[in-house]
């Protein structure tokens, strides 16, 4: 792990047009915050007859920039553009202060028709040595996946931490009917950066609170109906779903236990939301809270012991924590801010991401259990649905308002990247827990 960080005192907004027209990547660097690791990502060479559908170098560059841990050096500063080990001149990279250099190329695989060989090498420019070299033999549809794998390798080799570039998200949208009919509600599955979207559910009812199972095979969500909202568990691969045996009334905000065996949710039968746990195997119900005011949006701690939830028992909505058991005593967690809602644990369990009102609207904040303080990390102010990536290297959330979109944030907030939405008005998002094959 290198520590060549520099404090900078100005703001740069870098606009990079991605491979889709609306995939605008905005990397904002805030005043006084440490700079990322300077890395050069040389455009990958290619000997293929036809243009490749994916720029591997661009995918890697975008992945690394989203974490805020890296500052890719613009390609127009490069003195050379090597694509093989033989062409690598370390001096060219020391001149432009690159700590690391990634080079590579995509070749038609000699022995397999329609397949490609993707080769990538990462160099430490200061030490003048190769950090790693990897190669993938793939079909063209896996080119993007290979690029994400390369980005994972770069991130993990340099930071000694895991990254989430080859994971997926689910998100919900409302698609207006052009003919004036009822709008349609959709649940989408896509790569974490919005690519390869596919609809996994269409519904006439609003789909709320999608949450990915810990093993990555299922998603739980609620469907909002005036007659009584139900909670469904859907298997992603097959599209099959079933309603879990929740009590009468409105059932809302489902979330998984870390072992995937139970669902925590809120139910309003007697006109007021309280927190319940249901065991998927036998349908056994456990009522966690019983309070005359609102208790909702439960989220399970990674160690399985606690549940955090939102309650207005202290007048303003704030985050409370209770043991994951019957009639648990609740302790207030958040102590500052006009309101705090929608808390979800970080993978380590040491932090919560939440939607906080610090007087500037609804913003993404990170609460730290050790300091008891909330750090606002978003520059937008009608934020909703904030979650950590599976390794905590990024966060994702929805920006509401007239211009609605999904945004990926670095944990320090300095990189804020827009994610394209397939179709409709974005509502909520959740980040899948497992790596793609």
């Amino acid at each position: 792990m290198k520590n060549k960080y520099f404090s900078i005192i100005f703001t740069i907004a870098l606009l990079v047009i991605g491979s889709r027209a609306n995939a605008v990547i905005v990397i904002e660097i805030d005043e006084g915050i440490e700079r990322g690791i300077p890395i050069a990502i040389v455009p990958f060479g290619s000997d293929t007859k036809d243009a490749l559908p994916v720029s591997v170098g661009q995918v890697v560059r975008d992945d690394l920039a989203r974490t805020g841990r890296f500052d890719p050096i613009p390609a127009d500063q490069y003195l050379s553009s090597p694509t093989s080990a033989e062409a690598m001149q370390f001096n060219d990279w020391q001149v432009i202060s690159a700590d690391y250099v990634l080079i590579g190329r995509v070749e038609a695989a000699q022995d397999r028709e329609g397949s490609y060989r993707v080769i990538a090498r990462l160099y430490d420019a200061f030490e003048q040595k190769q950090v790693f070299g990897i190669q993938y033999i793939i079909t063209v549809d896996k080119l993007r996946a290979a690029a994400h794998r390369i980005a994972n390798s770069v991130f993990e080799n340099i930071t000694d931490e895991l990254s989430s570039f080859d994971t997926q998200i689910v998100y919900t949208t409302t698609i207006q009917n052009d003919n004036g009919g009822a709008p349609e509600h959709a649940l989408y599955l896509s790569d974490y950066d919005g690519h390869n979207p596919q609809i996994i559910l269409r519904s006439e009812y609003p789909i709320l609170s999608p949450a990915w199972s810990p093993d990555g095979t299922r998603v739980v969500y609620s469907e909002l109906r005036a007659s009584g909202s139900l909670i469904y568990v859907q298997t992603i691969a097959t599209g099959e779903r079933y309603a879990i045996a929740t009590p009468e009334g409105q059932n809302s905000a489902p979330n998984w236990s870390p072992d995937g065996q139970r669902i925590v949710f809120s139910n309003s039968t007697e006109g007021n939301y309280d927190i319940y746990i249901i065991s998927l195997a036998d349908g056994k119900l456990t009522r966690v809270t019983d309070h005359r005011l609102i208790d909702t949006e439960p989220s399970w701690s990674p160690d399985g012991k606690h549940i955090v939830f939102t309650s207005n028992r202290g007048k303003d909505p704030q985050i409370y924590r209770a043991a994951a058991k019957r009639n648990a005593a609740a302790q207030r967690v958040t102590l500052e801010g006009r309101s705090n809602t929608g808390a979800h644990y970080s993978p380590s369990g040491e932090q919560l991401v939440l939607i906080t009102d610090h007087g500037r609207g609804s913003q993404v904040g990170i609460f730290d259990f050790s300091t008891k303080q909330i750090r606002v990390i978003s520059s937008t102010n009608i934020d909703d649905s904030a979650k950590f990536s599976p390794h905590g290297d990024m966060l994702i959330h929805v920006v509401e308002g007239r211009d609605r979109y999904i945004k990926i944030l670095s944990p320090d907030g300095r990189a804020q990247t827009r994610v394209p939405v397939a179709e409709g008005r974005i509502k909520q998002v959740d980040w899948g827990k497992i790596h793609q094959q």
Partner: protein
Amino acid sequence: MYASTRIIAVTFISLFFLVSCTKPADPGMEESSMDEPSQAGSSETAGSEEDSVLVEMGLDESASDEQMSLLEQSTVYFDYDESTVTEDAQKVIRAHANALVQNPDVSLQLAGHADERGTREYNLALGEQRALAVSAFFQEFGVDATRITSVSYGEEVPFVSGSDEESWALNRRVEFSHDLMQ
């Protein structure tokens, strides 16, 4: 004394409830358009025409002009993150409650809503808390609890789509609608 119902009252109320008493739809069936402020309950939903029922509520001659004007309002509004029923809202509720007491065959549906700030899940709960707070006042003013149903749409069905204080204030609301008792 329904025979002495003032013509103006009948005309007005009939007109009003014809619009608002379409069968209470699931939220999937209604969402205001992005650009035009629209009455959520009167969106052009397929099938809403055949579902609509004419609910006519008669009022006795003691109904004052002020009460008539209060009956014109079928929405009450709330402060940010609040479900406290304001004094203005209580006046509206009292007027509607009096009309309901005089028309025991009419039921009341309350739909609670929130503005887009805060999370969708919390807003769903907040909309319900608001609907229940309004329900409690209706009961206080003599409407039997069995005649009232309440539902929350959270922030899913905004009255207006703007993202400013003015729009948010219009979206923090409970709407009343009516149907004939089964």
